[in-house]
Structure formats: structure tokens, C-alpha cells
């Protein structure tokens, strides 16, 4: 799984991304993380829960989701190769979420072309 190895690169290359987590929604497991600052494990567990609620809890099971609040923006993107896995990207509240979404999808596309 190339995405797992490339989390740091994905975080650093994306626009204003503070933390990245790759999660398995079927088992509620955080598979890998990368963060610009030290984050407690609970923080990443919370991202996994959010990914499950956004992608598996909503009607129609979406593939992409954005959650914006006053303190941060969260972008979640489901893997096309494994529907149970997803990339979670945490950004500042004023981040360009559309660009972050494209960045996440491009990371999966790059993996698929390898």
C-alpha cells in the first residue's frame, strides 16, 4: 500500500495540511499517521470515528467528505482499491478544502498507476 508509506509526503505536499491519517473503517483501526506536530493517539482515533460516520454512516455511502468547523477542516477520501480504507486530512479552518480533496484523490490515483 504505497499511500501508507507516503503519508508524510502527502501531508507536506498538500496545501495547509496539518495531519494525515490512513484508517481502516471496517476494524476502526488507524493504520498510519503523519503530523506536523505531536498529536495524541486519541486524536487519530477521533479521525477514524469521523471517517466512519461520514463515509459509512451517511445515506448513500459517499466516497469523499469534508467537515468544516471553526477550529479545523477535515477532508476524508475513500480508497478506490479498498472501500474500507480512507485517507483523513486535517487542515486549518481557512484551508482550500477543494484543493486538499484533489490532492487526496491524486495520491490514490498515483498509487493506482504504479
Amino acid at each position: 500500500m504505497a499511500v501508507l508509506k507516503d503519508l508524510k509526503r502527502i501531508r507536506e505536499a498538500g496545501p495547509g495540511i496539518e495531519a494525515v491519517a490512513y484508517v481502516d473503517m471496517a476494524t476502526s483501526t488507524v493504520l498510519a499517521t503523519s503530523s506536523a506536530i505531536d498529536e495524541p493517539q486519541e486524536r487519530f482515533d477521533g479521525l477514524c470515528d469521523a471517517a466512519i460516520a461520514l463515509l459509512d454512516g451517511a445515506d448513500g455511502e459517499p466516497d469523499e467528505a469534508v467537515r468544516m468547523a471553526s477550529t479545523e477542516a477535515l477532508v476524508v477520501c475513500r480508497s478506490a482499491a479498498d472501500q474500507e480504507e480512507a485517507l483523513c486530512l486535517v487542515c486549518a479552518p481557512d484551508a482550500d478544502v477543494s484543493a486538499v480533496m484533489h490532492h487526496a484523490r491524486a495520491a490514490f490515483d498515483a498509487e493506482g498507476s504504479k
Partner: protein
Amino acid sequence: MSVDPTLERRLEALAGAGTADREGRVLRALSADTLRKRVLRLLDETVMPRVLSLRADGGRSVALDVANGRVGRILTADSAVLPGGEAELVGQPLTMEDESVTARVAGCLERLLEGSATLTVRSEGPGASPEPTQPGPSARAIAEVWGIELAPSDLPEPGAIFDDVLAAVQGKARAWLMLGATPEDSGGAGDQDALDDLNAFAEAWGVGGQAAAATLGLPEGERWSLIALHRTGAAPDLTVIARYDGVHLYLSVPREALGFVADTWRRAVSV
């Protein structure tokens, strides 16, 4: 007697509403400028007298008496935050008679935040109420020292926000649905199927989206949120749920409109 909505919100704040989420809260930012803005907003929105204890990376810390958006007193501070002669500020009522006070408090906070990516905020109260005739430096005055423009904290009422957002995005929406407002309303580009889908989605999502907000792990006390969901393939549109207070706006817009909708929303809620 009608009560001014802004005053009403202030009264709610004075009653203690919305302070629980500030207990042990961590402010994060990639840039020093963003962290400064978050601190300024925290100070500006502190109406009820509170003691705010701020701890930066590396353990630097300061405790402040804050009320009415103003710093009334520096209660404690590390020597790294208030070095040398600046230490005399600790414990003194911060009056505006000394014109240098605002710059000195700004300097104190600047040293606190220097090189820090996070700030842990603990809010306890009540602190001491500042004398009305001797207010300490306001968040806005500190923002001026730092050359930062602080957006107004008195946000418009939900009606005004949704009016602005709808006016901007209506042309791009295949359908929209407003719940929790009086009167509830809906519309779109004449696409009844899209509106039916949106109604079904809103029903599945929960009454007014309240249940969804709780399960999505949104911090308690968040006044607003925006959630956008996209399913590739069968449904090419983006479904957006924008919540402000008790009002929810559901939108069905093209996937390409995500950036536009997010920016429009952010402007409306002054982020």
C-alpha cells in the same frame, strides 16, 4: 419588549453558555500568524470574567484575567514570557492610562507564542471584573499592535447568514432545502427529483441534522459546521449540510462547486 439579537447572545455568554468547550482546549496552527488570530478570537469572545491559562510548546505559560474581551490583569507568567522589568506587570491592574500597556501585553503574548505550534487553553472562572473606567487592553487593540485585522465576533443571525449564502449559491444549486428556519423553505433549478433526493437525504440524516452533528464528533459548543459529501458514480452531485445554530441548509450542487460553497460559507461566518 424586543431584545437585540446581539445583546441576547451576549446575555447567553454571560450566563455561562458555551464556555465548557474551552476547558483544556488545544489551539493548533501551522503558522504563528494563524495561532495569534486564534488567541485574539479567544480573548475577544471571552465576555464573562474568566481566568485563561495559556501554555505553549516548551512549557511557557501565562495566566490572564479576561473579561469583556479585555485583559484586566496578568496573574502569572514565566520569566521567558515576561523577562526583566516586564515582570512588574504581574498582578497589576492593566489600565489604559499607560499607553505602553497594550504593546507590553502584546509583547508578552508574542513571546509566549514564539515558535509554538499549539497552545493549550484552560478557562476557569470567574476572574476579577475589571473596573469599567480602567479597562485593560482589548483583543482588538492587541491585534492592532500585531498588524492583524480581527473579524467581528458579533456574527449575524442565522437568517442573515443563510440569506447571504443562498443568494450566492442558488444559481449553482440543483436543489436546496432549509430546515429549522421559520418559515422552512426549499427551491432549486426546477429539478424536482433533486429536491426529492435532498428531502430523503435530510430525513435519513436525522431531524435537522442534530443527530449527525453529534455522531460526527464535532466539538461541543460549535456554533456552526459544514459537511459536504460526494459519491462518485451514481450521484455526481455534492450534498452539503450547512448548520448554524438550529438552522440547517441542505444543498445539492455540482462537485466542482465545493470550493465556491466552502469559501462562501466561510465568508458568511467570518472565518
